[in-house]
């Protein structure tokens, strides 16, 4: 007996390469915090466990490594539920370590008891509860391997307090990563045949391309074939925005050429993507003329929402390399490109300035992108600002845009930025946030201030729950039920709040001050900065495919339906 369960936990985490934990101590997890005190692992003490979970997600997505968060039993553990659900939806590799009440009182409604293993069943890849301290190193290694292998995702390890406190002998864990599935050559040949004979193909690229590190291979394959590329919300940055083959983001708020490319295609080459409803719109009307090649590491995704003509189970990096190897002939796509280029010229992304002289939110985001550049990391919450961040920031590299795609978790931006900054200390990290989202998780700015994590937050403050308000404008006759937040009346005053949290607080409400304010924020290196960009409340996100309609009904702006009119 050379250690305790807690000692074994910390040693195992060190041995599997964990360098930072985002967490908060409490009764049941307390034994683990004692050996952590002298560990080489950095612990970032958050202000709310949800912040720890999202920070682990941000860290994982900037580094490509497993993010780790830690919480105590009961409410500490349940506060991790939202980040776990988020990580499950967006396939982010995180390991959550939770304390649990002692084995002898599990199931007795003990103080701070919650059955977190059961609570998280549908939102984790797997969850462990360890009953023998000798098992802890093996379980930690298994949890890390599970989180990153196959389709990445969250894993929970629940540790009863007495297991942490019991003496044990440490056995160094072996981190065994399962080998990647062999890409079936027959399917690759079938896919290549479809690609070779298609006249209107499109690469429909999802977040799996980023998770698998396949962006360089994708660039080669696209350039070799000349096939247009669209990148979903989760794949922004998987293909450079500046590239002529890139048509932008498809989906509910995608570009007209990207949506048209899917709708008019005769072949979708879907890579690491899951035909999410925000991309497909009304499923029966999605890409009606297209055959489908669907490659994904998760066999359960293939033919889930749209039947694949050729399904390839494999890691995107391997699949793309295999396709590259067999695709020799470049097909003539002149007519296809001339159609798409026409749309690109006629329907570029654009916005109007508010008639009342208020600041245009899109302009603010465009200027942050220009001044901070593609080497920065951008995070977003959920809503209008998120869509504008997806549209108006120009992404050139994978891992540069971190947001909550599948789950749509408001409040994601600030803690994710904190984790991203810890993972990438030399990069500028901008959280593009909404005034609603910001009020859900801004307490982590106190963490950032105390820990020297100099994130920058741009609050796109339109005074409302903007996306909900937009739907009320469009679909509820402008009846604005419970969407006004009072943030334009300074409830709260974000500059004062920033100051109180130990950050620099700035405010900007006019076009002429935007660049100067962004540069002023960028000049601050020793503290977090919060900029309150006061923008007009009536700006809307366009283009838009209204929920429950087909993609052909995409509106470039209110009442303008380029694809629908084309069919008429």
């Amino acid at each position, binding site marked *: 007996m050379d250690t305790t369960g807690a000692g074994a936990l910390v040693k195992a985490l060190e041995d599997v390469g964990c360098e930072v934990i985002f967490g908060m101590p409490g009764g049941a997890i307390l034994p683990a915090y004692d050996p952590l005190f002298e560990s080489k692992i950095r612990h970032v003490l958050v202000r709310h466990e949800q912040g720890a979970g999202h920070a682990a997600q941000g860290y994982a997505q900037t580094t490509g490594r497993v993010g780790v968060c830690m919480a105590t039993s009961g409410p500490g553990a349940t506060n991790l539920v939202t980040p776990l659900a988020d990580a499950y939806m967006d396939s982010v590799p995180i390991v959550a370590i939770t304390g649990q009440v002692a084995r002898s009182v599990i199931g007795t409604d003990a103080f701070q008891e919650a059955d977190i*293993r*059961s609570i998280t*069943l*549908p939102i984790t*890849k*797997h*969850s462990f*509860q360890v009953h023998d301290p000798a098992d802890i190193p093996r379980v930690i290694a298994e949890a890390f391997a*599970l989180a990153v292998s196959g389709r990445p995702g969250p894993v929970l390890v629940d540790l009863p307090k007495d297991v942490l406190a019991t003496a044990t002998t440490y056995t160094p864990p072996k981190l065994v990563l399962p080998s990647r599935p062999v890409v079936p050559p027959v399917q690759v040949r079938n896919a290549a045949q479809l690609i070779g004979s298609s006249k209107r193909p499109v690469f429909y690229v999802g977040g799996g391309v980023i998770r698998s590190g396949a962006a360089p291979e994708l660039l080669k394959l696209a350039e070799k074939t000349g096939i247009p590329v669209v990148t979903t919300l989760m794949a922004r940055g998987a293909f450079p925005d500046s590239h002529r083959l890139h048509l932008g983001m498809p989906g509910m708020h995608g570009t007209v050429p990207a949506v048209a490319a899917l709708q008019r295609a005769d072949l979708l080459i879907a890579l690491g993507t899951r035909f999410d409803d925000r991309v497909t719109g009304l499923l029966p009307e999605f890409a009606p003329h297209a055959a489908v090649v669907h490659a994904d590491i*998760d*066999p*359960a995704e293939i*033919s*889930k929402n749209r039947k694949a003509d050729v399904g390839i189970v494999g890691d995107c990096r391997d699949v793309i390399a295999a396709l590259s190897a067999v695709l020799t002939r470049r097909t003539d796509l002149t007519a296809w490109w001339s159609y798409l280029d026409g749309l690109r010229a006629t329907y570029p992304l654009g916005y109007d300035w508010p008639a009342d002289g208020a600041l245009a939110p899109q302009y603010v985001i465009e200027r942050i992108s220009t001044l901070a550049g593609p080497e920065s990391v951008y995070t977003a919450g959920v809503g209008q600002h998120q869509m504008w961040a997806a549209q108006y920031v120009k992404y050139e590299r994978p891992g540069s845009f971190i947001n909550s795609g599948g789950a749509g978790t408001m409040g994601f931006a600030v803690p994710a930025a904190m984790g991203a900054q810890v993972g990438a200390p030399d990069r500028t990290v901008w959280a593009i946030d909404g005034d609603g989202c910001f009020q859900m998780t801004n307490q982590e700015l106190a963490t950032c201030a105390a820990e020297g994590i100099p994130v920058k937050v741009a609050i796109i403050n339109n005074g409302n729950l903007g996306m909900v308000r937009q739907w009320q404008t469009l679909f509820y006759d402008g009846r604005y039920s419970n969407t006004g937040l009072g943030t334009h009346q300074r409830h709260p005053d974000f500059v004062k709040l920033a100051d109180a949290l130990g950050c620099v607080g700035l405010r900007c409400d006019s076009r002429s001050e935007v660049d100067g304010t962004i540069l002023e924020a960028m000049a601050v290196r020793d503290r977090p900065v919060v900029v309150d960009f006061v923008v007009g409340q009536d700006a809307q996100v366009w283009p838009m495919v209204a929920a429950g309609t087909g993609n052909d009904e995409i509106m470039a702006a209110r009442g303008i339906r380029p694809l629908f009119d084309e069919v008429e």
Partner: protein
Amino acid sequence: MTRHSLSLLLRNEPGALARIVVLFSSRGVDVSSLSLAPDGSGALSRLDVVVDLQPGRTPEQLVKQLGRIVDVKSVVDRTHDEALELGA
């Protein structure tokens, strides 16, 4: 609704059955009957289950989703085996 008989081998771990049942519940699968029994050595359990699927949901999809569960060692769709046994 379409009816399917599935047969699974599970690791005999705490919570293994819960994982299966929760998957049925979260994916909108109706359970018609369910039987769990030890299989051989005791390290595995055999779960036989008859489920009803909503229109548009395929048994192949369900089998793959069950296959993602760490405690599931194998899943077989026995719908047609049973039909044969019954001489249908």
